[in-house]
């Protein structure tokens, strides 16, 4: 934008400070037939920023598979919906709150949880589980400890108070997040299939109702802030972070669910990013109607708030509804019972415009289609970098006798150690339906009052994505799918949180495009559609982007909870088997990074046919009651997975195997593999079934004793494993 071609009355700097480009401003003027006033400029800025408009990502997101037999609602609503039989549905979504959490970790994370909870109960679902995917910088970076404590505190503070269990998640550390942590929060709710609520406004003349907390000046331009890079002055952006009040959200949740039992709500939309602006516009756009709002009626927390501030505030715990006029008094009485604001602030119109009045004067008049359909959409330039080359490692470069000491170092590392310190700060049992607590492959929550459950997991390996975005994208999906399978559930659908750097840089856009392509291929092959999600771009500080991080949140169904699987070894005398092919892939493994401080060697390639075959085999064995415990072989490889099973079950194991390349076998991160525990009387059937299904299985050893012993290598006591596994966070 050069000053020479600036020919508008509106100050150029004002437009720039709203994050709008010259051509975008020209588009506004063309659409309106005039220049916008300040309030209108603010509205366009809020709607057209990356966070709300998906302008860089929309084109590519459309390539993901989003439909399936069980999909009732795909992307585009507050959350996705899947059928889980018997008239029940699961409603879920994951969303990022990265930028605010870096500035103010406690409130940033807390309001992230609050926001995603609202997305789910807006749809008519009672939230039953919270999950998260967190990424922090180098464990030794001076800010890391403060950020971890704050984020964990904020997630717990919000979830514990509102009384929704936080049942699991994932946490990783890498220097690429030093200046830009990731906080992705996911909520799963349960509703009845015939009681799902949507956001399309309808019924000309129907009242538009504001409920929840009052509107203050907090979080103004939060979404715009989340659509820009950070620099050294980012601390100054702290006032754009909102403050959460989980108590009010609990009241809002109960009031909304109570009202939803009545035939009163026509449309409902939570006020999340860009507050009243995006909620009113989305409702009008989806219903192909207009909305008139009298801003003087909006409940205000501060005096003398302007139209601009009211439209852009991101005060938390608020909802916008269109209700049946005849039910207005009933609705008012429910919200009054819960001590919440209830105000009719406008009405649905046939103008297809958003028209705002305040103190009797018109403040804005914008055709909805200009804001939504005409919103900018970019096909940004991209470059796909060559994947990092694969390195083939050889036995002679490793000392077999170091295997067990390497194992101890690995399980003490922040990226592989126990997360108990974190999950004990989350109430993971409230609602009394938690079947599998944090620490297994997937959390399992019972559908209240039934004998079925849903399994939930969140996953991503950014290092894989950084070194081969296509295979990394595939990996994120299959890792998640495997975790769901390992819990005994049929994987049904996923939500995604696409965390990337600045999309205006072609190599970042290339990462995005390739990750999407990989995810799409995996989702298609596994019949694991994407039903909701969120994109967080501009995760950069001083020009340094984060590693590409497409976090996946997956949900599966366990029809009979007696088939639920966990990772803890159950009984002495049982035998542990490895399912799947091992090819000693040490490239970009945790072994290389932790023991050799190397980040190279390439991303393992994912064979989707093997994934599908082996996963189906596992589910089949579970249904036949052949297995006692199951663990996906993921980060750290076979021996780390064995150690986790031993630690969880407080059981030892005698490993008896012969391999030419022990480090490759024990620490390689080949895909499509599981460890399974089998009782002696089922061994034969397992082996026969595996051979019929052409699935590779290998006997690892027999469970028992108080140590992990490996023939010809030595042994390490369980107590030592536990000490090493818990040490880092215990000393936090």
């Amino acid at each position: 934008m050069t000053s020479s071609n600036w020919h508008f009355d509106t100050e150029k700097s004002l437009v720039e400070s709203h994050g709008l480009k010259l051509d975008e401003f020209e588009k506004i003027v063309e659409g309106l037939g005039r220049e916008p006033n300040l309030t209108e400029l603010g509205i366009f800025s809020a709607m057209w920023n990356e966070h709300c408009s998906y302008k860089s990502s929309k084109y590519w997101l459309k390539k993901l598979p989003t439909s399936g037999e069980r999909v009732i609602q795909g992307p585009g609503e507050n959350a996705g919906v899947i059928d889980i039989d018997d008239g029940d549905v699961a409603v879920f979504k994951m969303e990022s709150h990265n930028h605010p959490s870096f500035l103010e970790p406690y409130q940033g994370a807390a309001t992230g949880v609050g926001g995603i909870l609202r997305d789910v109960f807006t749809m008519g679902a009672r939230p039953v589980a919270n999950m998260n995917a967190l990424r922090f910088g180098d464990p030794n970076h001076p800010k890391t400890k403060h950020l971890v404590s704050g984020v964990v505190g904020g997630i717990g503070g919000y979830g514990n108070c509102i009384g929704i269990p936080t049942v699991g998640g994932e946490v990783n550390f890498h220097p690429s997040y030093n200046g830009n942590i990731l906080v992705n929060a996911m909520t799963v709710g349960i509703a009845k299939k015939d009681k799902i609520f949507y956001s399309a406004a309808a019924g000309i003349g129907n009242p538009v109702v504001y409920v929840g907390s009052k509107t203050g000046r907090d979080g103004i331009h939060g979404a715009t802030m989340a659509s820009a890079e950070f620099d050294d002055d980012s601390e100054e952006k702290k006032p754009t972070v909102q403050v959460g009040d989980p108590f009010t959200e609990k009241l809002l949740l109960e009031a909304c669910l109570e009202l939803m039992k009545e035939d009163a709500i026509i449309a409902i939309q939570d006020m999340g990013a860009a507050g009243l602006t995006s909620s009113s516009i989305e409702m009008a756009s989806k219903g192909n109607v207009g909305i008139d709002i009298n801003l003087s009626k909006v409940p205000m927390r501060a005096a003398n708030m302007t139209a601009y501030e009211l439209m852009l505030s991101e005060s938390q715990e608020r909802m916008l509804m269109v209700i049946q006029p005849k039910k207005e008094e009933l609705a008012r009485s429910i919200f009054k019972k819960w001590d919440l604001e209830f105000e009719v602030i406008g009405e649905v119109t046939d103008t297809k415009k958003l028209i705002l009045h305040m103190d009797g004067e018109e403040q804005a008049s914008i055709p909805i289609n200009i804001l939504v359909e005409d919103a900018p959409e970019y096909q940004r330039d991209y470059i796909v970098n060559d994947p990092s080359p694969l390195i083939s490692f050889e036995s002679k470069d490793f000392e077999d006798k170091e295997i067990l000491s390497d194992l101890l170092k690995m399980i003490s590392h922040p990226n592989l150690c126990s997360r108990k310190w974190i999950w004990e700060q989350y109430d993971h049992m409230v609602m009394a339906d938690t079947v599998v607590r944090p620490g297994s492959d997937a959390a399992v929550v019972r559908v209240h009052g039934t004998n079925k459950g849903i399994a939930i997991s969140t996953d991503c390996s950014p290092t894989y994505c950084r070194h081969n975005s296509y295979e990394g994208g595939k990996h994120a999906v299959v890792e998640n799918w495997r975790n769901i399978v390992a819990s005994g559930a049929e994987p049904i659908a996923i939500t995604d949180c696409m965390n990337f750097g600045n999309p205006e840089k072609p190599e970042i856009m290339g990462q995005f495009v390739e990750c999407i392509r990989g995810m799409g291929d995996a989702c298609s092959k596994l019949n694991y559609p994407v039903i909701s999600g969120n994109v967080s771009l501009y995760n950069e500080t001083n020009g340094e982007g984060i590693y590409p991080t497409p976090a996946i949140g997956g949900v599966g169904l366990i029809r009979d909870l007696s088939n639920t699987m966990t990772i803890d070894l159950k009984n002495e005398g049982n035998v542990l088997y490895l399912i799947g092919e091992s090819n000693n892939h040490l490239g970009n493994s945790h072994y290389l990074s932790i023991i050799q401080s190397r980040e190279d060697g390439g991303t393992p390639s994912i064979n989707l046919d093997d994934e599908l075959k082996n996963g189906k085999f596992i589910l089949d064995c579970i249904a036949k009651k052949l297995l006692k415990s199951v663990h996906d072989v993921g980060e750290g490889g076979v021996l780390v997975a064995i150690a986790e099973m031993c630690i969880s079950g407080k059981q030892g194991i005698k490993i008896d195997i012969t391999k030419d390349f022990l480090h490759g076998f024990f620490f390689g991160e080949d895909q499509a593999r599981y460890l399974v525990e089998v009782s002696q009387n089922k061994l034969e059937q397992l082996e026969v079934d595996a051979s019929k299904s052409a699935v590779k299985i290998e006997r690892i050893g027999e469970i028992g004793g108080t140590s992990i012993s490996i023939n010809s290598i030595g042994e390490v006591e369980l107590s030592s494993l536990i000490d090493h596994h818990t040490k880092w966070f215990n000393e936090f």
Partner: protein
Amino acid sequence: MKTHVIVFPGSNCDRDVAVAIQNIIGSSPEMVWHKDSTINQSDLIVVPGGFSYGDYLRCGAMASTSPIMKSVIENANKGVPVMGICNGFQILIESGLLQGALMRNSSLSFICRDIIIKPTNTKTIFTNKSTISKMPIAHNEGNYFANSNQIKEIEDNDQIAFQYCDENGDINAHSNPNGSINNIAGVFNKSKNVLGMMPHPERAAESIHGCDDGRNIFESLLS
């Protein structure tokens, strides 16, 4: 048995305890909204866990002045069994039905995990079936404190209900999750018809919870 569960704004274990009562005692409780003012006839009143009034000001402080609490206190004084779990324990303390105070956990962080408790007095309506039991805690302010005179008094009157212990029943510093004085996890009033406890028996009430030791408290009430 006619049972009542009080619901405050911010209660979040009200449904969980209602399910446990339904499953174990065999009849579903009446859910009583905090703005209601009377409970006429009851065989058990439960003040459930949660974050009543967001735990703003001080845990349990605002709920203790809510309209329904007058009736809870009257019933308690008449000998009706009253049980406060977690936030309910905090409310009963704030309302004066139980002695002592619940401070922030010594770790200064929220703790959610299984602990083991040992009944100290098994001759009460709540504990006549109690043994060493495993059940979860989930709280930020469960660090029980009473001054030395009060401790002497509640000890002399057999008012300690439960103490945190290890798997062998040994009461020691290692088995104390939150810094509570003398490992106290729950206390009675003088007449033993009011119980306050931090652990959640309703979350250890069926096999799917991984442990059902919490049932014995509800079963005690039946006998």
